[in-house]
């Protein structure tokens, strides 16, 4: 564990913008997006954190500042410990951070996923396109303002649309009969329940 702590201390000493990040397990550090690649390179080359295990986007909710954070988990094949590196996106409307694909080719798919789900652009990524959703899908599903029930969207294949005359439709009851909400809020809001019962699978959706 100490190697990971040392690495975090070294990062903070080298980049004044870096700061401790609250954590419940592995040593964690916040770095400014501009220093992100250099910090990851230092972790990889100077401190032996040679595996990129995970890249994850986080949306803190519309109106939060910063709204988007990208979280990296790097692992050391020698010391067998993790370091968490987080970089906030300065712009909430067009979030972007530099790409780590130059350090780990494995970052490619992780970054495509974060782009697909959150709309975070990774500058310098060689081929940043959607990975789980189809090309041309207009929304970013893991953003907090995207509803659990989905948004009615046209299907990508014109032939299929012509044949079935349907698209991707939203789910009834705002996503299901048991939808809970995060955070320490009052029980009525928190408990799992149908959030919108104006239409169900049996009762058709009222015309807007």
């Amino acid at each position: 564990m100490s190697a990971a702590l040392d690495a975090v201390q070294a990062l903070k000493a080298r980049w004044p913008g870096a700061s401790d990040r609250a954590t419940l397990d592995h040593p964690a550090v916040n770095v400014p997006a501009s220093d992100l690649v250099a910090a990851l390179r230092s972790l990889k080359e100077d401190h032996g954190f040679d595996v990129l295990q995970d890249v994850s986007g986080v949306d803190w909710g519309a109106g939060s500042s910063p709204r988007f954070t990208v979280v990296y988990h790097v692992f050391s094949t020698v010391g067998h410990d993790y370091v968490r590196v987080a970089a906030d996106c300065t712009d909430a409307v067009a979030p972007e951070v530099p790409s780590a694909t130059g350090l780990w080719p494995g970052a490619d798919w992780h970054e495509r996923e974060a782009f697909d789900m959150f709309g975070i652009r990774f500058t310098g990524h060689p081929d940043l396109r959607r990975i789980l959703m189809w090309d041309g899908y207009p929304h970013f599903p893991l953003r907090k303002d995207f509803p659990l029930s989905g948004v009615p969207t046209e299907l990508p294949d014109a032939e299929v649309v012509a044949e079935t005359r349907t698209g991707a439709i939203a789910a009834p009851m705002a996503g299901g009969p048991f939808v809970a909400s995060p955070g320490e809020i009052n029980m009525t809001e928190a408990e799992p329940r149908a959030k919108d019962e104006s239409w169900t699978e049996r009762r058709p959706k009222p015309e807007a």
Partner: protein
Amino acid sequence: MSVEHTIPDTAAKHAQGGFETEKMSISMGPSHPSTHGVLRLQLELDGEVVTKADPVIGYLHRGDEKIAENMTYNQFVPYTDRLDYLAPLANNMAYAIAVERLAKLEVPPRCQAIRVITAEMARISSHLMGLGAFGIDVGAWTVFLYSFTEREKLYKLFEELTGARFTTSYTRIGGVARDMPPGWTDRVLAFCDQFLPQLEEILSLLTRNKIFTDRTAGIGVISAQDAIAYGLTGPNLRGSGVPLDLRKDRPYSGYEQYDFDVPVGTRGDAYDRYLVRGEEMRQSVRIIRQAIAQLPAGKWYAEDARRIFAPPKDKVLTSMEELIQNFMIVTEGPQMPAGEVYFEAENPKGALGFYVVSKGGGVPWRLKIRSPSFCNLSILPKVCVGAMVSDVVAILGSFDFVMGECDR
């Protein structure tokens, strides 16, 4: 397999005096027997040789991470069954430990041992499936019949323990759903005793099989550097000779008490990955035997975690205090502190990670699933280039991936 290509106008080319070949674009999948689910490979071929491979994934994307943000921690357990649906017990355990790390909750030794036993049984059943399917992919049908017979015996034991064969949902945050039924461990030991000779027979169908070795040895070679650079984990990483195993390197759930070896390959080809899986099953049997031999007594859930683990049913129906406790956990969910954790477990397919961000309360703010199949498949564009089309089938078989986990 649908074929999209333009028919070359050979007569016109002859008239110009030259003859050119054209590359062919083939879409392999999403419905193809060797893609084990709904993986699609957009291949570009020069004759029989692959010049470019672009995996297209997402056909099984169900938005599990979005769903997790809208339900309590225990409600998400059944969704973890559907990640790597060939080893649901191992997924249940990885998820439960991740959330328990968030609550800084240590489950009793008996619970840990039960989880280890079930996770290792899940590993055996997953590898049996992987071997059987790999055999079919390269033309060895018989293996599948034998390995499925063995897997069925395991599924009988799973059913006895959890009530379900496939979607077990066995763990809860802070424990497991119920203790093992009487005599169950004896039946597990009896399975182990008859399984080892069966395993030798199954492996002997492939290990020195000329057709199998011809189709897998030297195929899909991944160097140790590449395996690390692409974040490969599990047997695919160890097949390339990197001795990383989270059960050894970062022991969780009491793995440090058990004596087992971590097999590694030497050449990183499809054959080595097969050998590693075969040996891992033997090691799993070793772990199961030790875990049962030293099985601690006690509770199978954390008794003191009153805001996390629902009380036993008989107490709920007879005691007011427990009834309220049960009601609160069901409606509000297990109460967690604010903060973030990342936990990875060594699953049959590789390191399954959960990154949990909590703002307090019973529902995660963000739950990222780091799926081993997703990372393992990301190396395909590199490995497939230069291989023949038939080699692609062997490479996919040797990767032993699950799309439910890859697409989430």
